[in-house]
């Protein structure tokens, strides 16, 4: 048991989360440990988590995507644009929004996998391009979206707003895919050693292309959900989201060098950040401090992880 906790980030993070929640419940007994508050935490991290699932797959395969925040805005704005200005039916507009996101992923993936452009440079450039496209279609944002579109993100099931359920669905689905399908297992090999994977008969380029498409599509779904939840599409949606998501995924056990990570880790990483920022809101810690504290926590967690790994090695 101890071995598992020390070795697997998913478990150590769970223990840490429980400890932090326990302390917060003692300090803020009337505001923190309420269903209302947890419902809110889950809702607030749902969009980030859906993006984080895609990012986790990328990090497992040894890459990352900085353009996801812009894709969130672009997909939401494109969907809203089609519905609002052209009266495109809701399902068609959603499909168009996701297709738009997939195209971004295809371009990223093609240039990175087949043309050998560095993922950081490529997705950094794409981040600006796609943000510009979002501004182009939405101007200052599109309000008054169709009622049926808004129900997607604003309905509730069992007291939880729908984005929470979509998030859980995404986490469960990709956990299953990554654990249980041959195709998704390959991402671990690509992240572990790209050249060895290629020589082992894995078509690395093709897989990399698809990993970017998956991540962009999930970002697209997240963007559409976010605009449905807000009842509006804003071109400024998802600003800074990419770094937040990468932080969550690394907290959740991924490594920037690839080969490691589990999908539930993405959820736990996001949950960790969500709970911390919730506690800071409850404790009325102002925005200046939030960033500093989140940065310190990231470093502290990773250091603690190294420390535990070492302890584990000594234990043997």
């Amino acid at each position, binding site marked *: 048991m101890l071995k598992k906790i020390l070795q697997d980030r998913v478990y150590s993070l769970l223990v840490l989360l429980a400890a932090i929640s326990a302390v917060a419940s003692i300090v803020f007994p009337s505001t923190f440990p309420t269903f209302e508050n947890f419902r*809110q935490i889950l809702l607030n991290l749902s969009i980030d988590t859906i993006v984080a699932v895609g990012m986790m797959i990328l990090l497992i395969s040894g890459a990352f995507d900085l353009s996801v925040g812009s894709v969130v805005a672009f997909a939401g704005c494109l969907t809203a644009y089609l519905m609002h200005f052209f009266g495109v039916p809701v399902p068609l507009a959603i499909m168009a929004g996701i297709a738009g996101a997939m195209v971004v992923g295809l371009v990223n993936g093609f240039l990175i996998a087949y043309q050998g452009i560095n993922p950081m440079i490529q997705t950094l450039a794409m981040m600006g391009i796609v943000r510009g496209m979002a501004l182009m279609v939405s*101007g200052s*944002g599109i309000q008054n979206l169709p009622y049926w579109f808004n*129900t997607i993100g*604003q309905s509730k*099931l069992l007291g939880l707003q729908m984005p929470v359920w979509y998030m859980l669905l995404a986490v469960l689905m990709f956990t299953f895919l990554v654990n249980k399908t041959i195709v998704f297992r390959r991402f671990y090999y690509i992240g572990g050693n790209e050249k060895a994977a290629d020589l082992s008969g894995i078509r690395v380029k093709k897989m990399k292309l698809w990993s970017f498409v998956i991540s962009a599509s999930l970002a697209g779904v997240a963007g559409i959900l976010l605009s449905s939840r807000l009842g509006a599409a804003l071109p*400024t949606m998802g600003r800074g989201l990419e770094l937040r998501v990468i932080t969550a995924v690394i907290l959740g056990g991924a490594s920037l060098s690839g080969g490691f990570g589990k999908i539930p880790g993405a959820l736990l990483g996001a949950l960790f950040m969500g709970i911390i920022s919730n506690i800071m809101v409850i404790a*009325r810690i102002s925005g*200046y401090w*939030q960033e500093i504290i989140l940065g310190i926590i990231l470093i502290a967690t990773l250091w603690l992880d190294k420390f535990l790994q070492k302890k584990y090695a000594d234990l043997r």
Partner: protein
Amino acid sequence: MKHSTTMNWKSKAFVICFLVLSLTACELPPRNANKNTEVITSSRDTVITNEEYVMVTTAVTMPMYVNHDQAAFKKWGEKMGVKTSILGPADWDVPAQINTIEEVIGTHPTGLLINGTDPAIAQVINKAVAAGIPTVVYDSDIPNSNRHAFLGTDWYEIGKMQGEEMAKLLNGKGKVAYMGILGLTNMESGFQGLLDVFKRYPNIQVIGKYDDKANVEEAARISSDLIAANPDIAGICGFDSNSGPGIALAVREANKTGTIKITTVDWEPEHLQLVKDGAIQMLAGQKRELFTWYGAQFLYDMVHHTNKMANNDAKAGITSVPYIINTGLLKITKENVDEFVK
């Protein structure tokens, strides 16, 4: 495959349960979420304990917000002897501001002062109002919300003031460009005000609208490109805090200080100095301190029933504070700039 029968049974049961739950537990949002005319005010007639006023903005670290909005809010809190808190994301991130408001609602503050950054926050404002929290919006109005009061500047007027001053400075003719953060509702209406003025001057030619991304370097780069491409450019208008200093820098580097007229917004020390130097001809300043000072005061008055109009305002469905306040604009030119330098 040996478990197939039980698996089937289990999955069938699960699907049935899920469907039943979905049908019974699925709760659709209200149809006219944004047009709820019912006004619910604080019904706290009882003793107020732990009085705390919370301001939620976005880009909480932006110097203009810190020096004006937040400073005045804190000063008000000290004067009134009540607790004030300022929350929100450090960057311009409206969804994060909404998330923060949602989480704050759960902690039931005495009053909420919200920076009206985007119409999309209407929903969460309604949620706060529905939770019985007095809610005041400042800076930009959120027209479709049930907010109790709004204080701010009419951005259309900012554009209009800049346009009229610029037309006067140019004697009604010449090439003009303008820049700001594209995609923000208030700026877009400022742009509209500017353009509506220029429509009346057929000899003023508008050559472009640019996004300086609230960044001095970007504003300077755009301006110097503009000057290079249009040596006869006569005036540039800026709409965010960083536009003015950036434009002025580029104009100075092109040795055209005073030749190319500049009007812009805000009156930070930097802007005032540039007016003194003659680089900027006019500033359209906002009275931001008034947004939050009086905004907080409105919240206080609602809670303490300072001006009670009905026996019970909440039950009567009214508020006893002003509905919309336009704090007006400051016009700062070389003539009066010394009065503003501290």
